[in-house]
């Protein structure tokens, strides 16, 4: 654990054990389905977006999301707190299952905490004047990130989730979320910087 983690918000929040509405006792199945649709399905796009960025193609994302939502329905009574991070953690688990079966080679090291890199240096000149980034190159740079960096970046920048929620979804401590996010941004910047340097050289030759 990093020494300065206590500087982060939420780090010492107690775990909320029972902070959701109780399940109605005499709920029929159609009522249960309606409640599920009301609470969980508003986050269907978020689920798809995460699955799409994890699998990097539409076809597999569709499979992963369908599996995840059906799984979520089975475990709906276990929902505690907010539905969005809960659903996204199920999407991630479904994705890992899918990955394990379909791309076993890519699972190597994904859950290995040893990969974490602690940012030690100031974000130097490789972080460029970012507004000028080319949209296509930026998307390619994110898609090329290793999984554990890609997922935190998507959850933070595209789903606007807190470190605390991301930590729950990615099943890592909050300090690890911060270091992975820092690493993810630096890797994207480096890959864009490298690309633009190359093209810059060509233009000014």
């Amino acid at each position: 654990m990093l020494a300065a983690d206590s500087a982060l918000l939420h780090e010492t929040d107690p775990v909320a054990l029972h902070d959701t509405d109780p399940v109605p006792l005499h709920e029929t199945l159609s009522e249960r389905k309606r409640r599920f649709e009301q609470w969980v399905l508003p986050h269907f796009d978020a689920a798809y977006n995460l699955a799409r960025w994890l699998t990097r193609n539409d076809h597999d994302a569709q499979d992963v999301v369908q599996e995840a939502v059906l799984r979520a329905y089975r475990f709906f009574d276990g929902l505690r707190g907010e539905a969005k991070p809960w659903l996204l953690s199920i999407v991630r688990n479904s994705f890992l299952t899918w990955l394990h079966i379909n791309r076993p080679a890519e699972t190597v090291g994904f859950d290995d905490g040893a990969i974490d890199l602690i940012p030690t240096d100031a974000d130097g000149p490789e972080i460029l004047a970012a507004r000028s980034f080319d949209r296509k190159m930026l998307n390619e740079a994110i898609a090329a990130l290793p999984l554990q960096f890609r997922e935190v970046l998507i959850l933070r920048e595209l789903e606007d989730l807190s470190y605390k929620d991301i930590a729950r979804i990615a099943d890592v401590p909050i300090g690890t979320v911060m270091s992975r996010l820092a690493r993810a941004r630096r890797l994207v910047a480096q890959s864009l910087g490298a690309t633009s340097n190359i093209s810059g050289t060509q233009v000014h030759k």
Partner: protein
Amino acid sequence: MTREEAARLLHAYIDGELDPVKSLELEAHLAENPSVRAACERLRGMSAAIRDKADYHPAPAWLEARVRAAIPAGPENVSAPWWRWLKPAGSFSAAADWLRPAASFAAVALVTWVVALGTMRPSEDERITQEVLASHVRATLANRFYDVASSDQHTVKPWLSARLAFSPPVADLSASGFELVGGRLDYIGAQPVAVLVYKRRQHLIDVFVWPVEAQKTEQTLAHDGFNIERFARNGMGFWVVSDLSRNELDDFVRLLAAP
């Protein structure tokens, strides 16, 4: 604040995740250091560019429709609640009508039985299970896991021995990925006991230890999302409580119980 620390906290700062005190310290540092300030601005630009330009993939409408249709709403759902059978349902066949009074009777009998169970005195094991679980949850809620914080078994063991009538065995399992983080005292089953606290990733494992007379059988329990295991070795009883997965906790107990 050092330059290194400022650089490290910049990400949490631009994400609005830094606590107010550190934010003020960092802002003071930024005011004095134009180069760090520039790095901060580049980082904000980077974050804004990703939000602005990275593709957001909304789900195709047909997929949502397909998934909605696939969610079971009929009685074929395997996880149907048992009380469904007590309720009148239009789809029931006439043959099922006679089942309903029978089911009601069975339910009354079941309730009577459960109430009778509840009023009986819990066994000693159940009481201890409740007590170790309560101790673990209390420590988690209060964020106070140990009275002595140390990863060194030679610090934790004497500290506990000095305060108890026995000397608990303290194993170093760090080589297997279970890091000792400290120890505390608690009062379980009407006696003071030692609690060794280990850590696996962000999961804490409480090991309650006290002397026992008989060799109790090994047992695994699950309770409210926590896994509880218990065993006895060399005259000591061990109760292990954690929210760690069953498999990993099994590994831990195997290591702990190894002679």
